[in-house]
């Protein structure tokens, strides 16, 4: 019945030493809770699409493109016309289904709402066996004017879910009958399936005449279609991929006579479950998950657990010195070394288990807030699986043994004679060991603080940096490319300019922070043949420079009244001459000596561009991207955005005025507007989330470490009471004693700084290298110093109270006869 005895003595000990127990259990619980939260995040990231029935056999056909004049790029989407050929040539694919996304405006009686619609082929649900709330998968996609809604969408448009048979109207004028309602899917999927309409020629018609644009379904070069297949027993990923090059040469398009399709493109199969983390970067449906984030989070979880375990070890060994007499007496009374080890290990296990229970409560309470931070929908039920729970309990035991064994062995090896004859009980080695643990804890804390500071300041820099244009007070309207808007974009612009509070307006193909970029390559500059040079292209109008506050460097602005300044790059009205502006980056890249030198030079591709002006570099993308050479030209068929500059304080009134103009001109197209600086900030959302999490983890690490330090300081003070008494008798003042004790804890923190600074400098400077435009590495050094001071201040604040108490105590108490 020894075990029962240990349990009794463990629980009494915990109750007796309330401060010690509270610090130990709370510290460990916070550590556990953080670990569990991070584990939930990682589990969520790793299990994308795994819940889909038969997910092991589902693949997406992805495309790798090797353009002759540009870098190879990987696309999540591929060529739509491949589908029938894949069906014919690959008996190992049971089903081949296409999915395509397009923007549509939808209404049920009221105003149109802008939506992204998934166009899915009729056999889509043969591959993806999603649960239906109403309707059946056999009927759902059979009618070309059917629409399938998610529960959420059904409620949005109809207020209830049982709406099969009701109709929605699209801005093409047609009515769509709701054929089924899908149960809301877990968020851990790479697809968005809120509104599904059958993919058919009815939606994407074939051309009425020979020269008309091809239907999406037949256009080899509109690479935006996702193709999914499910594999049967006749093949494997490897055997199917081996057949792709020959298949492409047999069935694929020929861009010209010299290149065979398999040299220009590659196909490969991406397993469904891998799409989230490993799928191609371009043309994704949802942002890619980051393996780096997962690894660094796992590392952080481990480090926080280490900090919490070290606390446990530290406090327990520290207390061991106070319990040495008890241990010695037990040994004198016949306890073997083994008995002492078992006693202290079971005490540790008992504490660890209490911490584990408290951690579950902490997770339950904090999960909703955590979900908001990491932008996920995770439930505590993810922990309810016996396997996960088993892992957590095993982890708890591991922590108990790992953290409990050091104190157990230290204490069990006390020699009773020594302990009982002198007051001294603790070998110097174990004090040193504790110091090492404190150093490790604070190294981790300081590194996390530095990381958080660097992530945040890079973020602030990215959002606020001077990108070469004036981004204040600019509002952007999307949907200019909508067929109902396109022809009247200039009239819209004019009507906006009539408003007294709008000073400038410009139509462009893109605005800063747009992800879409167009690239062109040409092999002849100024009459000289060159290796193909790549350049971005952007369509603007003559008011672009004025609206964005950009000054010319050389030459002249484009002029809409001059015929040769107006271009049509593609389509039936294609022109092969165009006057363009270039940016500063292009001067060097194109081989010109300076801006003046560039004026009048010609760049020749299918179109011959004549440079008439040079403008400064305008940084359009994220600070991760570099500024590329860019051509600016006027092509009125390529306007997607309208940007206008406002001068009023009364934003609400102005937006409502603009809305009224829009509604008047395009009643069927939803009105969407946004501030340019918000759009710029939006592209750093992932960084912002990451910075927030780093800050949270750094904070938690500090809380746990300080708890440990506080406990340690109280025990140390207790242990040094005699010494302090002697020092006071010798004439030491309270201040001198406090300084002595505080210094004892400053030393490990300072050593931690020496380790943490180079480590975090190394990691954070390589993180910053991912940004073309970034804060100076020198700034990291400043943050290191700041984090070091912060850690020191926290350590001081933690220990100073205790030290004061001990320093003020009357020394005779400590020096009385023993």
């Amino acid at each position, binding site marked *: 019945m020894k075990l029962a005895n240990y349990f009794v003595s463990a629980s009494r000990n915990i109750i007796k030493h309330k401060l010690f127990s509270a610090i130990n259990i709370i510290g460990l619980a916070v550590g556990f809770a953080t670990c569990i939260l991070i584990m939930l995040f990682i589990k969520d990231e790793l299990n994308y699409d795994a819940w889909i029935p038969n997910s092991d056999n589902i693949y997406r056909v992805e495309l790798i493109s090797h353009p002759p004049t540009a870098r190879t790029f990987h696309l999540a989407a591929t060529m739509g016309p491949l589908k029938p050929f894949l069906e014919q040539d690959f008996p190992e694919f049971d089903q081949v289904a296409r999915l395509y996304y397009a923007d549509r405006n939808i209404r049920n009686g009221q105003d149109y709402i802008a939506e992204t619609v998934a166009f899915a082929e009729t056999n889509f649900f043969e591959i993806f066996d999603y649960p239906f709330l109403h309707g059946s998968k056999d009927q759902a996609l059979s009618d070309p004017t059917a629409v399938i809604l998610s529960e959420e969408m059904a409620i949005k448009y109809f207020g209830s879910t049982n709406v099969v048979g009701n109709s929605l109207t699209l801005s093409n004028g047609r009515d769509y009958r709701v054929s089924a309602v899908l149960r809301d899917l877990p968020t851990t999927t790479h697809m968005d399936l809120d509104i599904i309409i059958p993919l058919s020629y009815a939606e994407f018609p074939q051309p009425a005449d020979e020269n008309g644009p091809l239907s999406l379904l037949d256009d080899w070069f509109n690479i935006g279609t996702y193709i999914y297949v499910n594999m049967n027993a006749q093949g494997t990923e490897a055997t199917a991929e081996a057949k792709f090059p020959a298949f492409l040469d047999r069935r694929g398009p020929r861009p010209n006579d010299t290149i065979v399709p398999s040299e220009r493109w590659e196909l490969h199969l991406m397993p469904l479950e891998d799409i989230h983390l490993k799928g191609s970067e371009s043309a994704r449906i949802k942002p890619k998950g980051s393996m780096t984030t997962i690894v660094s989070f796992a590392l952080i979880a481990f480090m926080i657990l280490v900090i919490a375990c070290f606390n446990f070890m530290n406090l327990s060994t520290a207390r061991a010195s106070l319990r040495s007499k008890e241990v010695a007496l037990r040994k004198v009374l016949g306890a073997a070394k083994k008995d002492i080890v078992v006693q202290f290990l079971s005490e540790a296990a008992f504490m660890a288990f209490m911490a584990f229970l408290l951690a579950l409560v902490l997770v339950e309470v904090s999960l909703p807030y955590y979900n908001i931070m990491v932008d996920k929908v995770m439930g505590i039920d993810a922990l309810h699986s016996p396997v996960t729970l088993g892992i957590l309990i095993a982890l708890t035991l591991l922590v108990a043994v790992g953290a409990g064994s050091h104190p157990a062995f230290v204490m069990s090896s006390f020699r009773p004679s020594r302990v009982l004859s002198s007051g001294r009980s603790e070998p110097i080695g174990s004090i040193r060991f504790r110091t090492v643990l404190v150093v490790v804890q604070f190294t981790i804390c300081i590194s996390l603080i530095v990381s958080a500071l660097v992530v945040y300041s890079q973020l602030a820099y990215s959002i606020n940096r001077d990108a070469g244009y004036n981004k204040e007070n600019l509002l952007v309207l999307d949907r200019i490319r909508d067929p109902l808007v396109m022809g009247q974009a200039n009239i819209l612009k004019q009507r906006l300019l009539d408003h007294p509070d709008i000073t400038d307006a410009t139509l462009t193909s893109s605005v800063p922070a747009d992800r879409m970029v167009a690239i062109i390559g040409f092999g002849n500059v100024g009459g000289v043949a060159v290796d193909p040079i790549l350049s971005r292209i952007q369509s603007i109008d003559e008011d672009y420079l004025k609206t964005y506050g950009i000054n010319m460097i050389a030459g002249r602005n484009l002029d809409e009244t001059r015929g040769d300044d107006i271009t049509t790059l593609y389509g039936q009205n294609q022109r092969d001459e165009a006057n363009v502006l270039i940016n500063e980056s292009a001067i060097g890249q194109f081989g010109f000596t300076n801006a003046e030198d560039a004026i009048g030079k010609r760049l020749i591709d299918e179109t011959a561009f004549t440079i008439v002006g040079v403008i400064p570099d305008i940084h359009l993308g994220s600070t991760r991207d570099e500024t590329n050479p860019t051509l600016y030209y006027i092509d009125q068929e390529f306007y997607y955005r309208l940007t206008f500059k406002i001068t009023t304080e009364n934003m609400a009134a102005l937006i409502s005025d603009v809305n009224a103009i829009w509604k008047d001109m395009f009643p069927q197209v939803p009105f969407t507007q946004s501030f340019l600086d918000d759009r710029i900030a939006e592209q750093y959302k992932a960084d912002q989330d990451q910075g927030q999490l780093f800050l949270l983890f750094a904070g938690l690490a500090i809380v746990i470490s300080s708890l440990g330090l506080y406990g340690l300081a109280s025990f140390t003070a207790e242990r040094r009471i005699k010494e302090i008494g002697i020092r006071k008798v010798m004439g030491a003042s309270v201040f001198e004693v406090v300084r002595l004790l505080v210094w004892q804890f400053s030393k490990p923190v300072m050593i931690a700084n020496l380790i943490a600074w180079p480590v975090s400098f190394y990691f954070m400077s390589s993180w910053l290298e991912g940004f073309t435009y970034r804060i100076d590495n020198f700034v990291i050094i400043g943050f290191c110093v700041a984090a070091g001071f912060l850690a020191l201040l926290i350590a001081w604040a933690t220990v100073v109270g205790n030290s004061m108490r001990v320093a003020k105590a009357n020394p*005779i108490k400590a*020096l009385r*006869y023993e």
Partner: protein
Amino acid sequence: MLKLQDLTKAYRTDEVETVALNNVNIEIEHGEFVAIMGPSGCGKSTLLNIVGMLDTPTSGHYFFNGEDVAGYSEAQLGVIRKQHIGFIFQSFNLIDELSVFENIELALLYHDIPASERKERVAAVMDKVGIAHRAKHMPSQLSGGQQQRVAVARAVVGNQSMILADEPTGNLDTAHGQEVMEMLQKLNEEGTTIVMVTHSPSHADYARRTINLLDGHVVTESMRA
């Protein structure tokens, strides 16, 4: 050197008031060697603590070199204490983590004495008590007698004019006890005032005067011829 006048010390717990010293009147001259004797709990240590300014009286006067220090604050007492008074304890009270040299030096550390002078003075006093060859040893490596010699050295290294010894031989065997007593006697002959609490009549014989305490009162005072 010091004069206690109607000195009373009472300890108060929640319910009981215990009087440890009751109307004590004692005068000690410069250069005296006084032994304080009495059974356990008679107030010897309380008296020594008050004389040593580690504790303050409840009422009465304590004149130290003519100055009434009875109402002084802890900090004020600390200043006088570190200049004039050295302590020797029954349990030696050396700091385990410091070497012999460092333990002795501790008494100078809080006196703003430059390091070179500290070194000289510690070396001199170590010679005097015959512990110089152990300078780098830790207290745990020394015998009880040696530890107490270190404590004595520490008590006098600051040129204190008075040493308060609280049963300095209580933890020592006869031979070592003798050794320590002879050392104290020598110090006294060189002019240091010594006040010693002891249980041993033979050690009390080293003193010129013996004060007997019982239940907080001075019962007898005897002078040695």
